[in-house]
């Protein structure tokens, strides 16, 4: 089943043409890794999927982008973002307690029942492998957690609103190898129930977790294929060069 379909998608920020004629499909229950050098358009692509680019002044788009066969601009933006969650590059806890961070999205969608909320919080923290570390101090400020814990908290927060898709925007760029391993482990488990799009600067990470991998360069989608194929026998020399360069 196809979750997202982009046809001839072009976007601009002011004068900058950030995505050029991108055609891509994201399938349900896969992890799609998106790689490319900085300013390749990979994050701009990711932020199209939950319309976060709308916040940038001077943003324009044309072409088609469908989510579950429905044009993305026709979906109520708040509902779209509830269905398509996002985990950001740096751990970004809100200035609230651990519990309130996880409960935030749920509350905003109108849930008032305390028991129901604490159930959701517990379930989400467990899914993000954080529950055991924080269950005794749920009312402590989220800023008291370590970087890796904060990032898993952000994953739990995203899971709490029960999205169908989770967008990861370089989620491990600020983390040490052990924390990175934990986040990757969480992603692989989540794949069963969610569709995951992972933008990463770390080519090895893309290779480790991605079912398929897309390579962006200068706003264009250069190549999209099964991850093994991309990393063993890419059909485009630019992909090959990027991967080799990265592998050193």
């Amino acid at each position: 089943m196809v979750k997202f379909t982009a046809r001839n998608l072009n976007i601009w920020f002011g004068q900058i043409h950030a995505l050029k004629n991108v055609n891509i499909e994201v399938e349900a229950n896969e992890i799609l890794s998106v790689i490319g050098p900085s300013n390749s358009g990979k994050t701009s692509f990711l932020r199209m999927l939950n319309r976060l680019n709308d916040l940038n002044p001077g943003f324009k788009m044309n072409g088609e982008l469908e989510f579950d066969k429905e044009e993305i601009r026709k979906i109520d933006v708040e509902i779209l973002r509830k269905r398509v969650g996002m985990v950001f590059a740096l751990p970004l806890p809100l200035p609230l307690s651990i519990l309130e961070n996880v409960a935030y999205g749920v509350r905003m969608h109108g849930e008032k029942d305390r028991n129901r909320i604490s159930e959701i919080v517990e379930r989400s923290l467990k899914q993000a492998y954080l529950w055991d570390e924080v269950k005794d101090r749920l009312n402590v400020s989220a800023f008291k957690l370590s970087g890796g814990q904060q990032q898993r908290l952000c994953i739990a927060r995203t899971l709490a609103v029960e999205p169908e898709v989770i967008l990861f925007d370089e989620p491990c760029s600020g983390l040490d190898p052990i924390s990175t391993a934990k986040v990757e482990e969480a992603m692989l488990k989540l794949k069963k129930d969610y569709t995951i799009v992972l933008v990463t600067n770390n080519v090895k990470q893309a290779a480790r977790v991605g079912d398929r991998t897309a390579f962006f360069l200068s706003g264009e989608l250069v190549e999209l294929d099964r991850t093994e194929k991309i990393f063993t026998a890419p059909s485009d020399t630019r992909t090959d060069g990027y991967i080799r360069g990265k592998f050193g």
Partner: protein
Amino acid sequence: MRNTKGVQKIAFFFLFLATLLIVVPVGLIVVIIIQKGLPAINWQFLSDIPRQGMRAGGIFPAIIGTFYLVLGAIIFALPIGLLAAIYLSEYAKDNVLNRIIKLAIVNLSGVPSVVYGLFGLALFVVFLKFGASILSGSLTLGIMILPIIITTSREALESVPQSFREVSLSLGASKWQTIRHIVLPNAIPGILTGTILGLGRAAGETAPILFTVAAFYLPQLPKSIFDQAMALPYHLYVISTQVPNVDEKIRYGTALVLLSLVLFMNLVAIIIRYNFRKKKKW
């Protein structure tokens, strides 16, 4: 080389001298007022009405009048100013309208206080027929402190990191929910600082209340917002220039009460700002 060092020494000495020329008199002013005003301060002075043509008794009605005026001004200016700040920080796009609004704010903050007095007289006292009253005076002061509240609140709102907004929106919260639950709570110390500075300004101003509310001498307390009232700054003006043979102690005492009130508010604002900067989590 020796010479340039010498020049630098002399230059820095003069810069230091200039700084002293500002700071020392400020210190002196405060010290003189405290020293000469303190003997006048006692419970009777603070709680009694003025007696013997303001040459004896206390300044209670003036304190109460100033309290009402400042309260009225803030009730009017805080909601409008805060919402205006939210508009500028969260909704305004970088366009001509935004530029005009900013110019208008700059302008409002530059309008001489006595011109606010004229405006209050023409609009509230005469045109809307509120008469010289607490209502007219409060509204006039409220409009006068609006730019202070807008500017400081806007700075406070804009200092909340953009990433918090993105996180909140990415979870499907609406724009208003994001403002209400994330942006506003984190901007409160800054908004409070601006509000208190506005209060201090309103408490100390005389010219805007001259023709809109201030009573020369009113031995009873105001009963409604349509009554005139005495006010501390105007009372100080009156006993310093309009009434002969007032004991100097009473004048200094009144000046001390007014100065303490205004400086206390500024101190509170500074403390809030300081604590907030220290505790800031991002």
